[in-house]
C-alpha cells in the first residue's frame, strides 16, 4: 500500500501552494464566496469520485457513472414533464433507477466475474444509449423553483451541493478508514481470494460499492440538472476518465489496495482550484489543459515510481 498519510499531506501541501500562488495572481481568488461558487461546479465530479475511489481500492473501476448521471437526469426530467409526476417523486424514482444501473454493474462484475473495465465499458455505452434514446437529444427544462433551489441555494453561505459533497465525503471517509467494511475494501484489492477464504462476503461487498456508485452518480445527476436547470443526455460530457483521473491524482492505485477519500477530495479540489485560478488570472483555457495534464502524469510517475522504494524492474515484472 502506498503511504496514504504521506500522500494526503503532500496533496494538502500542493493545495495550499495552489491557493497561495493563485491569490497572488488574482485578488478575487481569496474571497470565500467566490471559492464556494467555483468549487460548487466540481460538486458532481467530487461526489462521483468518492465511490470511484472505493471501487478502485478493490481493484475495480466504473466507467459507466457519467452515463448513469446523464440517464438519471433525463429520466427525472421525463417523469416530471411528460408523466406529470411530482418533481421530488421523480427525483427519487430516477435515483432508484441509477441504483439499478449500479446493481447491474455489480452483477456483471461480482457474479459473472467480468473484469470491471470491460463490464462498465459495455454499460457505459448502453446507459448512454438509453439516455439518448429517452431524451432523443431534446432535453427538458422549466423545472419548478423549489427544485432549482437545490442547485442555487445555500445554507449559511455554503451552497447545498457543496454541503452534500462534504457530508458524503465525511461519511465515506469514516466508512473507509474506521469500519470493517472499509478494511474489507483494501483486503479485496490486496487479495480477493484470500478475502473470500477469510469468510468475508466478497461478492456482497463488491455489489454494494457498485450500487453506491450508481446511487451517487444518480444524486450527482440530480444536482447537475438542478444547477444547469436542464436535463439532457449530453450532461457531464467530460466523461468518466476525468473521475478516474481525480481519484488517481488523489493517490488511489488503479491496481487496487490503496486509496483514500481524503486524498480524492483533495485531488478534485486541486484540479478545480487550478482551473479556476488560471481563469481568474486571465490565463487561457488552453494553458489550463496543459497544466492539469502535466500534474496528472507527474503525480502518476511520482506515486508509482519515486513514491515507492526503487525496486529492481525484474521483481515487479511478476505483476
Amino acid at each position: 500500500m502506498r503511504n496514504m498519510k504521506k500522500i494526503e499531506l503532500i496533496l494538502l501541501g500542493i493545495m495550499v501552494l495552489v491557493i497561495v500562488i493563485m491569490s497572488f495572481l488574482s485578488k478575487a481568488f481569496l474571497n470565500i464566496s467566490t471559492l464556494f461558487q467555483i468549487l460548487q461546479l466540481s460538486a458532481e465530479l467530487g461526489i462521483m469520485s468518492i465511490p470511484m475511489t472505493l471501487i478502485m481500492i478493490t481493484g475495480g473501476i466504473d466507467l459507466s457513472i457519467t452515463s448513469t448521471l446523464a440517464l438519471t437526469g433525463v429520466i427525472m426530467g421525463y417523469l416530471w414533464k411528460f408523466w406529470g409526476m411530482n418533481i421530488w417523486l421523480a427525483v427519487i424514482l430516477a435515483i432508484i433507477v441509477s441504483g439499478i444501473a449500479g446493481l447491474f454493474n455489480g452483477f456483471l462484475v461480482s457474479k459473472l466475474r467480468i473484469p470491471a473495465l470491460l463490464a462498465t465499458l459495455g454499460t457505459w455505452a448502453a446507459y448512454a444509449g438509453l439516455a439518448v434514446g429517452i431524451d432523443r437529444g431534446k432535453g427538458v427544462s422549466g423545472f419548478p423553483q423549489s427544485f432549482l433551489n437545490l442547485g442555487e441555494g445555500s445554507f449559511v453561505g455554503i451552497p447545498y451541493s457543496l454541503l452534500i459533497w462534504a457530508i458524503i465525503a465525511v461519511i465515506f471517509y469514516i466508512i473507509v478508514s474506521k469500519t470493517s467494511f472499509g478494511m474489507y475494501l483494501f483486503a479485496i484489492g490486496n487479495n480477493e481470494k484470500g478475502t473470500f477464504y477469510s469468510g468475508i462476503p466478497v461478492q456482497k461487498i463488491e455489489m454494494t460499492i457498485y450500487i453506491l456508485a450508481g446511487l451517487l452518480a444518480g444524486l450527482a445527476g440530480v444536482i447537475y440538472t438542478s444547477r444547469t436547470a436542464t436535463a439532457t443526455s449530453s450532461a457531464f460530457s467530460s466523461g468518466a476518465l476525468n473521475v478516474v483521473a481525480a481519484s488517481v491524482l488523489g493517490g488511489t492505485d488503479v491496481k487496487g489496495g490503496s486509496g483514500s477519500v481524503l486524498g480524492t477530495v483533495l485531488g478534485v479540489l486541486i484540479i478545480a482550484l487550478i482551473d479556476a485560478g488560471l481563469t481568474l488570472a486571465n490565463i487561457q483555457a488552453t494553458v489550463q489543459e496543459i497544466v492539469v495534464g502535466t500534474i496528472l502524469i507527474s503525480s502518476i510517475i511520482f506515486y508509482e515510481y519515486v513514491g515507492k522504494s526503487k525496486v529492481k524492474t525484474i521483481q515487479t515484472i511478476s505483476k
Partner: protein
Amino acid sequence: STTNSASPITIYMVPKFTGAPYFTACEQGALQAVAELNELGLPVKFYYMGPSTANTEDEIKTITSIIALHPDALLYSSNDAQALIPVLKQAMAAGIKVVGFDSDVADPAARDLFINQVDFNVLARTLIDLVAQNVGPDAGIAILSADPNAANQNAWIAAMKEYMAQSYPKMHIVTIQYGGDLPGPSYQDAQTIINAYYPQAKAIVAITSVAFPMAAQAVLDAGLSGKLYVVGLATPNDMKKYFQAGVVKQDVLWNPVDLGYLALYAANDLVRGMMISNINGTEYIGGGKLGFYKVGPNNVVLLGKPFIFTAQNVNQFNF
C-alpha cells in the same frame, strides 16, 4: 449603477469556444470597438476567454470565474440555451451587465441585451429563396445543423419550414442531420446525405459555420459539384476555396466583425449609462460607426440584414 465615463471599465467576451475563425472575427470587431472607445477617452479593459471546445460545462466554469472578477460587463455566446441561464442570472445579480451575441439563452431575463446578428425569419427566407432560384421551387432539401439543442439553428429551421409552406408549397425537407458543430461528424453527415438522400434531396442547407465548409468538401469529394446545390452560413475565409472550386455559389452570413463590434458598444453603453431614450419611450443604443440601433421586444437588438457572399465579392473580406 453606472460608472463615471472617464474611469476604465472591464469587459469579458466569452465565445462558445475559442478558435473558430467566426469567433475570432467577433473578437476582432470587439477589439476595434475597444480601440475606438479608448481613443474617445472611454477606456475599456477587454478580455477574450472561453472553453477550448464547445463544452457547456467549461463555459459555465469560465463564466463563474469571471463573475468572481467583478467585471463591468460580460459578453457571451451560449453553448446551451438552457444550461447557461442560472449562471447568467448570477452574473446579473452580481451587478454585471450581461450582453449576449450570436447565440442566446431561452430566458430573456437572464441577460440585459441580446445582439441578434440577423432576423432569423429574414435569414431563413434568404436561404430558401436561394434554393428556389438555384434548384427550383419544388426542391427536396437536406439540412445540416449543429446539435438538436442549438437554439439558433432550431429557430432558423422553424422559420424555413414556415416560409416554405407559405411561398414554395412543393419544396420539402428530406432530412435533418446534426453534426455537432464538429468538422468530422459534420463531414460524415454530409456524406450520409449524399449517399442516402441524393437525388431526392437536391440541395444541402448547412446552417453552421463548421458544417457548411464540410458539406462543400463532401460534395466536392463525391464529384457532385454543380449537381447537388450547397448553401449555408460560414465565414468567407472558410469558403473561398469552395467558391474557387465552383462547388459553392453563395454564402449567406452577417458580418461577425460588426457583430462583435456592436456587442462591445452595447456593453459599454449599458455600463456607462449611455443608452438613449427617444420620445416614444423606445430605447436606442449607440453602435459607434454603425450608428444607432433600436432595442426591440425582449431586449433584442437586431444587427441587420444577412449578407450574401459570392465568388465576385468574397475576396474583399478577410475573416
